[in-house]
């Protein structure tokens, strides 16, 4: 067959080239495939039925009409849309389409409709998924099967069908077989495909997937110590802070209720990370996860920083990344503690007030111990900004306000046994190690309050347990 054309009835250009197809067929054998209606075009007695899109997929059709010339089995040339000169060249005929304009663009092939490339890739073996396939007798039972098999964190999961996983993989350019890292506690290799299966379970969209991959890579960075974070008696779990244009692109919330419920990206990215640790790594509560209490953030804890003020230095920039870079920052965090500071009107007074809230992290008498995140609300930020304070001044002001006399903190002081080494009684002592307090902007307007997220007590071992920032790839 020297010529093949692929068309669809709902395409205006396809309808306009019907007389051209008739012209061609008078002199050359022409095989017609129609994607939506094999009775089209009636004037030519219809087409071969390609409503399954199998032939279109094999021919890699992206636009209709497409005209292809073959020599034997080999494709020689193709043209998409209507372009008289190109059609005459491909068909090796002249005088085609009198009365038609010189050029008219085509329409999208039905093979390119949302979800269709993945469906066809699976059907035709162009995408091979290597995870074990588990047959469920009835789709209605799928969520219960996931519970029974221990895949859930307690909330219902989205059943990871091959098609859903294939769609998730379309969110990245990385190979499904690529190994992302070694997941604790069982120290097993984790592929991009396994992350995709868990991202489906968590409810992610494909556009969330690059953020999930970056978050997992950060968690598996040895500096982060994911194994210890999982195993600890302490409350902490991974907290994911997203910076850069990706946050807006995927609709993350950095405003009102940013640390709460209601946003799909915030909710599912953090959950996907936890599900990988659970399902791939084998990290289960009551087993290697020895947390005394845990915290609600161990279901998911992910939010974006508010970068709407161009004068503000975002967290990732303060950690060495170029402005405009999309990153995730992983911190070992507990729950949220609110700090009310309604009467401060100067940056200095506000820093002192917020510092009092921060002193409670881990224990008011412990110092250079757990780290913390201070999430500064827009109304508090407005006070800092009006006073001429940016990130540098806020961090310095807090550091100064968080430096306390050792005599108030040593073990036994004020009748409390908890405390720092008695040998430090005459020193001024910082609450946090250098770099141990992350200042982030988020939240909604209307409240003179900020949020403290206390950190894991093992953060005091600063060479072994570190906050990790990683760029989000494709």
């Amino acid at each position, binding site marked *: 067959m020297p010529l093949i054309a692929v068309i669809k009835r709902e395409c205006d250009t396809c309808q306009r080239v019907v007389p051209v197809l008739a012209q061609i067929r008078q002199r050359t054998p022409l095989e017609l495939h129609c994607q939506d209606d094999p009775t089209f075009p009636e004037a030519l007695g219809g087409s071969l039925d390609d409503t399954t899109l199998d032939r279109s997929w094999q021919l890699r059709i992206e636009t209709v009409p497409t005209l292809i010339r073959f020599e034997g089995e080999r494709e020689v040339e193709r043209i998409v849309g209507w372009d008289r000169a190109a059609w005459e060249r491909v068909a090796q005929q002249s005088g085609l389409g009198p009365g038609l304009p010189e050029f008219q663009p085509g329409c999208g092939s039905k093979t390119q409709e949302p979800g269709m490339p993945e469906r066809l890739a699976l059907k035709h073996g162009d995408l091979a*998924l290597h*995870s*074990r*396939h*588990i*047959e*469920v*007798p*009835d*789709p*209605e039972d*799928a969520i219960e*099967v*996931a519970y029974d*098999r221990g*895949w859930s964190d307690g909330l219902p999961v989205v*059943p*990871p*069908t*091959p098609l859903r*996983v294939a769609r998730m993989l379309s969110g990245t350019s990385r190979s499904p077989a690529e190994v992302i890292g070694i*997941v*604790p*506690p*069982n*120290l*097993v*290799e*984790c592929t991009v495909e*396994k992350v995709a*299966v*868990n991202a489906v*379970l968590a409810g992610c969209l494909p556009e969330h997937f690059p953020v999930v991959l970056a978050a997992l890579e950060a968690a598996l960075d*040895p500096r982060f*110590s994911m*194994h*210890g*974070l999982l195993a600890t*008696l302490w409350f902490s779990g991974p907290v994911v802070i997203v910076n850069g244009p990706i946050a807006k692109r995927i609709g993350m919330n950095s405003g009102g209720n940013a640390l709460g419920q209601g946003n799909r990206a915030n909710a599912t990215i953090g959950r996907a990370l936890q*599900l990988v640790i659970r*399902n*791939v*790594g*084998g990290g289960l509560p009551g087993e290697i996860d020895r947390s005394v209490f845990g915290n609600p953030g161990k279901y998911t804890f992910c939010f974006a920083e508010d970068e709407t003020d161009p004068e503000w230095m975002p967290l990732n920039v303060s950690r060495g990344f170029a402005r405009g870079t999309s990153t995730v920052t992983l911190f070992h965090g507990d729950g949220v503690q609110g700090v009310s500071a309604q009467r401060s009107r100067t940056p200095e007074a506000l820093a002192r007030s917020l510092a009092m809230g921060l002193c409670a992290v881990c224990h008011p008498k412990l110092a250079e111990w757990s780290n913390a995140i201070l999430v500064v609300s827009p109304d508090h930020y407005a006070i800092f900004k009006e006073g001429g304070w940016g990130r540098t001044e806020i961090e310095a002001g807090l550091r100064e306000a968080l430096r306390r006399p050792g005599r108030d903190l040593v073990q036994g002081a004020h009748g409390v046994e908890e405390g720092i080494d008695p040998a430090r009684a005459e020193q001024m002592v910082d609450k946090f190690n250098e770099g141990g307090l992350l200042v982030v902007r988020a939240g909604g307007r209307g409240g003179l309050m900020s949020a403290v997220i206390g950190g894991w007590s*093992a953060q005091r*071992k600063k060479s*072994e*347990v570190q906050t990790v920032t990683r760029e989000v790839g494709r």
Partner: protein
Amino acid sequence: MSTASYQMLDPTAELAPQRRSRRAPPQDMGAATIALLSISKERSNEFFDTVEQRLLARGLKVERFAKPTHTKPAPEPILQAIVERCQVVMVGLAD
């Protein structure tokens, strides 16, 4: 209600755990070397010092090991050394 069959992909590492029966305790503890593996939490040395003293007082042989940090898994060389040199291991934390 649909009755079509449905396929899901396994989100786990698909490891096949090998069930092994518990090893019998040594018949003669006097001939065994007991590993004391500290996971290096606060005061775990204090805890194991006491345990070691009690074991030595009974005439038992003891070797001390420690993970470099409790925040990460034990390095392979430490596990291998315990396997090669000891018949019993006690893993401990403290706080």
